[in-house]
Every structure is written in structure tokens, then in C-alpha cells.
């Protein structure tokens, strides 16, 4: 069988399955709104108000905090994979190539505006990260905003002349610190609950202590890692900071490696 025939046959099969799939998906989604129920969301809305005002942050970092750990790690995996794609740490070894600059020069206005805008973005990102438990936002959007600021300066001024200059090692360190903050906060919850209760719970919110497991005055504080705020979000701000560091470092690393790529031949 020739390749073209084979290709054509495969295209026909793909086309037919595409049509069937689209019909099923559209049909299902059309009648879906008749079946919707509140489900768990009602419970989360009911319980979350006791921890922090922003219900979504509470779900993200408390009830489903472990999912967020997975989410952090898929970003790390993607960053490492991107570095492997460009040869860093691969089995053949990494040859540092000379960094190519984009050939098109940026205009004066771009160069004048980019740096203040980037500084604004970084500051804005920091506020988003720190206020994640009260207002909409948190580690992910905040980290992404900071990474966008970095990316902007890199695109406008080039990798070498950018005022916000991060080295590769520095970003790896930042993402390591961010991920370790998350992982070790979880381990702290595990250890503390095992010590006081016998059963360990990973990522237990030691600051809020919703089940009165870690008794008051355990290590001289009221509760471990409590955030000094009347709203008592417990460990959530710390997790937000960890995620924010990790996201900003990860996305910046991806941008950096994409910018460094060049033709081999």
C-alpha cells in the first residue's frame, strides 16, 4: 500500500470519528443544563467561610490542596521537559550555544515603556500573590503576572540586555524553593497531626486547626504557621507564596529556553 493511500484512509477514519464525536459532544452539552446539581459545591460554600473569605482559594489550597500540589508539579515537569528538549540534562549532554538575539529591533517607545510596565507588573503580581486568600487571585495568577513582566522585558530588550536579568541557576533555585515550601508545609501537617493525634494527615491546615487536633500552645504559638490576621487562613498564604515562586520561576524558565533556541544547522 502506498503512503498516500494509507494517509488518505487514515484521514477518512479520523474524519468520520470526528463527525460522530462532535455530534455526541454537542448533543450532550445541549441537554446538560437540565441535569446540573449543586453537589459538593454547596458543602464547600458552607464550610469554607470558616477559613478564609475567598472560597475558591480555600478549596484550592485546603480541601483539594493535594491537587494543587499536583498542579505545581505538572508545571515543574513541563519546565524540566522543556529544558530536556533543548538539550539541558539530556543523555547527550548540553552544549551552551551563543545566545541569538531577535533580529528585529524594538522601537524607542517600546524600550521606553517596557521597563516601567514590567516593574508595575512585578509589583502587581506580588500583591496578587499575597492577597490570594481574600480577593480573587493567588499564587497562579500572581506568578504568571510576574513571569509576564519578565517575558516582556526579554522580548523588548533581548536576553542579554534585559534589566530584569535572571540566570538559569537562579530560576531553578527559586522554583525549587517554591516547591519545597509546598511539600514541606504538607509534611509539617503530617508530622504535627501524627504527634498529637496518632493519625497523620498530609497538608493538614495547622494554622486553622479545624478539628482541634494541634492543641493551643503546641510550640509556643497558638497554632503552627498561623497567619497573623483575624480571618485565620492558616497555611494558605504560605502555600500561595510557594506556588507563586514556583510559577514565576517555571514560566520564566520556559520563556528563557524558548528565547534561547536557535537553528542547529
Amino acid at each position, binding site marked *: 500500500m502506498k503512503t498516500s493511500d494509507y494517509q488518505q484512509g487514515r484521514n477518512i477514519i479520523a474524519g468520520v470519528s470526528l463527525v460522530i464525536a462532535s455530534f455526541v459532544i454537542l448533543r450532550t452539552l445541549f441537554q*446538560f443544563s437540565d441535569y446540573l446539581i449543586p*453537589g459538593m459545591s454547596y458543602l464547600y460554600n458552607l464550610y469554607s467561610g470558616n477559613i478564609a473569605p475567598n472560597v475558591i482559594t480555600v478549596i484550592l489550597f485546603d480541601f483539594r*490542596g493535594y491537587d494543587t500540589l*499536583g498542579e505545581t508539579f505538572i508545571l515543574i515537569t513541563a519546565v524540566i521537559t522543556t529544558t530536556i528538549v533543548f538539550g539541558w540534562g*539530556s*543523555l547527550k549532554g548540553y552544549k551552551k550555544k551563543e545566545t541569538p538575539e531577535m533580529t528585529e529591533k524594538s522601537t524607542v517607545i517600546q524600550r521606553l515603556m517596557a521597563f516601567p510596565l514590567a516593574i508595575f507588573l512585578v509589583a502587581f503580581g506580588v500583591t496578587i500573590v499575597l492577597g490570594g486568600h481574600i480577593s480573587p487571585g493567588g499564587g497562579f495568577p500572581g506568578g504568571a503576572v510576574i513571569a509576564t513582566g519578565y517575558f516582556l522585558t526579554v522580548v523588548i530588550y533581548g536576553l542579554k540586555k534585559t534589566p530584569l536579568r535572571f540566570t538559569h541557576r537562579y530560576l531553578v533555585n527559586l522554583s525549587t524553593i517554591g516547591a519545597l515550601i509546598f511539600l514541606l508545609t504538607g509534611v509539617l501537617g503530617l508530622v504535627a497531626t501524627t504527634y498529637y493525634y496518632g493519625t497523620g*494527615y*498530609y497538608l493538614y491546615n495547622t494554622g486553622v486547626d479545624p478539628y482541634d487536633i494541634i492543641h493551643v500552645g503546641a510550640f509556643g504559638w497558638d497554632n503552627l504557621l498561623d497567619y497573623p490576621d483575624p480571618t485565620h487562613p492558616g497555611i494558605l498564604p504560605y502555600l500561595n507564596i510557594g506556588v507563586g515562586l514556583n510559577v514565576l520561576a517555571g514560566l520564566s524558565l520556559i520563556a528563557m529556553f524558548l528565547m534561547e533556541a536557535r537553528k542547529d544547522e
Partner: protein
Amino acid sequence: MLNNSTLIPLMVVLPLIMAILVNFLHQKDKSVKFISIVSLIVFVFIPVVTLYGVHLFSGHLRTGSFPEVSKILIPEVYMGIVYSYGAVQKILMVVLTILTGFSVLAVINKKMISGVYMAMIFISLAASSAIILADDIFNFFVFTEILVVAQAALVIAVQEAKSFKAAFKYMIFGTISGASILLGIALLLGSYGLLNITDLSHAIQAGGALTPIGLVAVALLTLGWLYESGLFPFHIIKSNIYENARPEISALLQVQSKFVLVAMALILFRVFSGYALLKSVILGFAIFTVVIGSVMALQQVELRKLLSFVAVSQAGLVAVGFGLGTPFGIAAGIFHAINDVLSMAILFFIASFVYDKFKTTKLDELGEGLQVVPLVGFVMLLATLAISGVPPFNSYQSEWRLIQASAQAGVPELGILVILLSVATFVAIIKAFYMIFMKPGSKVEVNKEVRGNLTKAIIVILILACLLIGLFPNMVYDPIYNFVVSLGV
């Protein structure tokens, strides 16, 4: 029961911490080596000492569900993420960690120490452990996505054009399967309001027949399952991945995807236990995979490609066990998955040895290997016997149980299929054995520097394990059977 569950999350969290550390210590080879070996011992140790139970993440206990407002069909639900650890999980975790350990040792032994590469191996180990343990369908989804990216990274690290292409295909279809799994989860969440698998199965049973939305969710989740485990429409993509990775890593990848097959099939059966058509659909795809995989394996003239297709067709055989749908069949399928990953790992390690020693795996260039490495040839013969179900070895026990189960389920024709697959596998691999070790007139140079003592030790240990399970099958099979019966699927 609750008190012993403390160590369960460490099976996932410790590999993640170690992955972060070895990535951080990249280019400091001695520390990477030391950390990897020490942590592997710990990884094998944890599943052994952990007792059965459930782990509640963030400590959120079972709470009342206010059925009149939330419309959830059961009175109490888990609000947090839950991991459950039973007999099947224990056996799978032990086999997975031990084989990961062997792969890592082989990688370290070949001076391919790279912290980044080790980090990917550890992350893929953590992701597959999480998939095995997860009792929460969204958590399961997150870790399947991590697994896809990490496996692609392990293939990409070879840095050849073919491996890039294989990884790209894998990622593209991974996007489709990930989206279909997530859409299925969304449909279930919208119409039952739950994410925990145990709760979901109870709620679906309490609700009577599946809603039309639920039916589409079954189809979408099954599509994702087919991709994750490399069954029929996606068998080419999966075998491409096995073929283009380093062989000792392929040994790891096939373990992971076979265990993901088992874990996700168990999830499907638990959630949709009342839905009979699911079994027939799974059986159909499984039979297709078996037939096509073994036919493709018979045609190959390259050792790694051949082994990849054998691995895919054996995955089909595991799925046949699930397709039968009886507890006996499911238990036989899981048992076969365990036996099969052991003997497939031997063959992939032999391929790795051949690749290092002769610098090629093309069958028509190789030959007269038995004079050079008699031990490896002998073990390969034994492994061929093991994987094609010859009596003293382990696969015989599981294939025999599969045949029995198919007779019991009223489809004795499947028994013939199992026997035919064994014959085809035997023919395919014994051909490779002949071409590598017996055929006169080799065109390759023997690399004298490669002694491969570690690989030899690994394959001898694995073949002894195969023999042990073959002689005392009930040691492994009985806990699995009891577990499957207790699930009540």
C-alpha cells in the same frame, strides 16, 4: 483502620521531594548518585511497611451531605482527597518500586547520571504511584497528565529525531485523551456532584440507571483509558514510545502503563459497576489489541520494536481479563499484569544489554551471541518461555486462570485466543533469540569494554522472581482475588 494510614502519602510525596532535590543538584554527579540510591531503598521500603487503610488529605473527615439542598444521593461524603491502600495496591507498588530501582541502577551504572533525567524518573514513579493509590477521580486526572509529560520527557532525553517525533505524537494524543477524561469527569460532577470514586459509585448505584449524561461520561473515560494504557487505536503511539526510549527505561515505561491500565480499569468498574455494555466494549478493544499487537510483533526485524509490540499485545491480554468482568477474570487480569511486567522487564533489560554490547538491535546484523554472552542467551530463552506461558513460570499460572475464567464466563473461545497469543509471542521472541544468539555469521563488533555485570544480576534476579511466582502463585494471587471480591464489581 485509620491509624495506620500515615505513611500512604509518602509513597507519592517522597519521590517528588527527591525529584526536586536531584533536579536542584544537577551536574553534581556524586550527590545525585548517592541520593538516588538511598531514596530508592526507602521507596521500596515504604509500601512494604505501610498497613492497609485510607488516607484523608488535609484531614477532612466524612461529613454530612445535606441531601435536600446539595442533591447528593448519599448521606455522607468525603470532602477532601482520599487515597486508599489495599492488597492490590500494595503488590503493584512493590513491583513498581523494585523495577524502578532496577532501571535507575542500570542508568547509573551506564554513567548516564544526570540530575534532570533522574528527576523525571522519580516524577514518573510518583505519578504512577498516585494513579494506583488515588480514590479521587480529579486527582487521578492530574497525575495522568503529569505521567504523560514525564514519560515524553524520558523519551525526549534520547535526543534523536525519531524520539522527538514519538514524543510529539504522544503529547498530541495525550491532549485529546486528557481532555476526554476531564470532560467525562465534568459530566459526572455536573450530574452527580461528586468526585470521590467510592462515593460516586455509591451515588450512581443509589440513583438507579445511568443518566444519558452518565453514558457519555463512560464513553469519554473509556477513550482516555484506551490511550493511557496503549490499547487498540493508540497501540502504535505507545509502541513508538517504548521503541524510542532507552531500553532500560522502556522496561520502566511498560510497567507504568500496564499498572495505569489496571488502576484505571478498576476505577471504571467501580464507578460504572452496574453498566454491562462497558465490559463488552473493553473486551472488544482488548481482542483487537491482542490480535493486531501480535501480528505486528511477528513482522518486526528490530529487537526493540518487536518487544514494544509484544508489550502492547500483552497489555491487551490484561484487558481481556477485565473485559470478562467476573471477579475471577479481573483477578486473573491483574495477576497477569504483574507476571507480564516482570518478564517484559527481563526482555527489555536484555535488549539494553544487547544494545550496549553490539551497538545495534537490528536482528539481521546480529548473530553468534551465545559464544560471547552465554548467560544472557540462556536467561533470554527462559524469559521467552516465561512470557509465553510455559509451566514452571509465572505467566503460565495467570494465562491458565484467564482461560478458566473465560470458560466460566461463557466465552470459551477466548481461551483459544489466549493460547494463540502465547504461541505468537513465543514464535516472535524465539525468532529474535535465534537471530541474536544462534544465527551464524554476525556482522557486528563486540564491545569488549561492556561487561554488564549489573544487567546480568538484574535479569537473573527477575527470572528467579518469575520462577518463584510460578511455583507459589497463590502467594500473589489470593490477596488479589480477595481484594477484587471485596470490591464487589
